[in-house]
């Protein structure tokens, strides 16, 4: 039976981890490669990297990080941030990433999804969606709107429509991030997660709001997600990955229990 995935997310700027991660023992502070390796050894099912570098110089450093990660961890990992063209996709895939996550680049140019799927296969094209709750309206009937720039810019696109559109264009997976829940540690937006998960056939990764392992259980049961993205809950050492997985298993969730 297919297990539910637990996916730590690492934000990288100029080749260094942002958001202080509470490291243990021999892991160098702020090294994304060492951190990825630590999570790999602790049973992460996948790892997501977001490059939040602005400069092109930083981009080169990031690609070097991707290459070093690919030589150290033997589970799938995806890369997002700054993906605006098929060439951007090619660069990170060649550097060793399994999947590439496209977010605002797809909002600006949806064809990038079909182009990427044609060039590399749908299995490696992840649609990253940043979503905010808004009043239901004719324009946004679901009450969930697509936003970019960390939630500062509203795009006038209904999140439900967008998910279906991008699935039809060839996205093989959706990483669904609630801007409202992000950083609250109050749990994922289950209404949003369920709405999108039940409206597409590709896997959905719930993102934003995990503060307790029960939130992850809720995301993959009530929310119907295939995976739970986590950040601070594990970065700050509140829980280890094995603890999170054990908790989920104790609640009847199928997780990968040996690695």
């Amino acid at each position, binding site marked *: 039976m*297919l297990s*539910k995935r637990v996916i730590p997310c690492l934000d990288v700027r100029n080749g260094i981890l942002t958001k202080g991660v509470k490291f243990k023992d021999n892991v160098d502070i702020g090294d994304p490669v060492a951190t990825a390796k630590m999570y790999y050894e602790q049973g992460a*099912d996948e790892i997501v990297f977001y490059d939040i570098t602005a400069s092109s110089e930083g981009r080169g450093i990031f690609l070097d990080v991707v290459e070093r990660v*690919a030589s150290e961890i033997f*589970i799938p990992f995806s890369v997002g941030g700054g993906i605006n063209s098929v060439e951007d996709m090619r660069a990170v895939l060649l550097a060793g990433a399994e999947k590439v996550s496209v977010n605002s680049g797809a909002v600006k140019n949806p064809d990038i999804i079909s182009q990427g799927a044609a060039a590399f296969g749908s*299995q490696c094209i992840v649609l990253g969606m940043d979503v905010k709750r808004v009043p239901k309206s004719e324009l946004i009937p679901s009450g969930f709107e697509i936003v970019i720039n960390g939630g500062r810019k509203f795009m006038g696109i209904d999140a439900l429509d967008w998910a279906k559109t991008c699935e039809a264009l060839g996205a093989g997976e959706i990483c669904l991030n609630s801007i409202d829940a992000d950083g609250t540690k109050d749990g994922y937006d289950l209404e949003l997660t369920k709405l999108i998960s039940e409206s597409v056939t*590709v896997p959905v990764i719930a993102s934003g709001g995990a503060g307790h392992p029960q939130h992850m259980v809720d995301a993959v049961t009530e929310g*119907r997600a295939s995976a739970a993205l986590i950040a601070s809950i594990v970065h700050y050492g509140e829980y280890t990955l094995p603890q999170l997985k054990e908790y989920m298993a104790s609640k009847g969730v199928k997780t*990968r229990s*040996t690695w």
Partner: protein
Amino acid sequence: MLAILDYKAGNQTSVQRALNKLGIPNVITSSPDVLANATGIIFPGVGAAGQAMDELTSGGLDELLKDLVAQKKPLLGICVGCQILLDYSEENDTKALSVIPGECRLFNPSWVDYEGTPIRVPHMGWNQIELKQDCILFKDIDPNAYFYFVHSYYPAPEEKFIIGETTYGRPFCSLHGREGLWAVQFHPEKSGTPGLKLLSNFYEYCKEASDA
């Protein structure tokens, strides 16, 4: 030395990184001589079956692969490389290599999983293998180990070639072939320690076969 077959539809570099980690000598190649002299061949693959077959046939690699299999050269097909060893794939209505009898079919989204909901396509994530026959590739691997899958089509070979099955809505064949010719639907190069062990077992088999 293991040869990783080089054709555009493959994920050769991921396989190479895994072999490098294991210290297994390897080369990415499409050279007939290098392939013929290798102790074993890994036939990787991602993407679509039609495109993969086009790349193979345009370079004449399809006939070469069949010849090498006929000469009992050990071969491990991965993902799309596993699927197109069969006769046919529903993906892109593709006539495949016919090294192993059978075909490759699209998952039916009306199949229901253990939670009582329709399965998602692609089958993406970690799942387990139930061995139907003994397989040397699984030597010293925990029978409960998980492997990483990502695919929308699944192999359906003739029954006697089914070595292992995985359940996704229904049981499907995730490992097929015979001794020395194995095809895995999952990605051992992305399946952590058990996947690396499987690759290492394949290399050990290849070495013994070439010494014999």
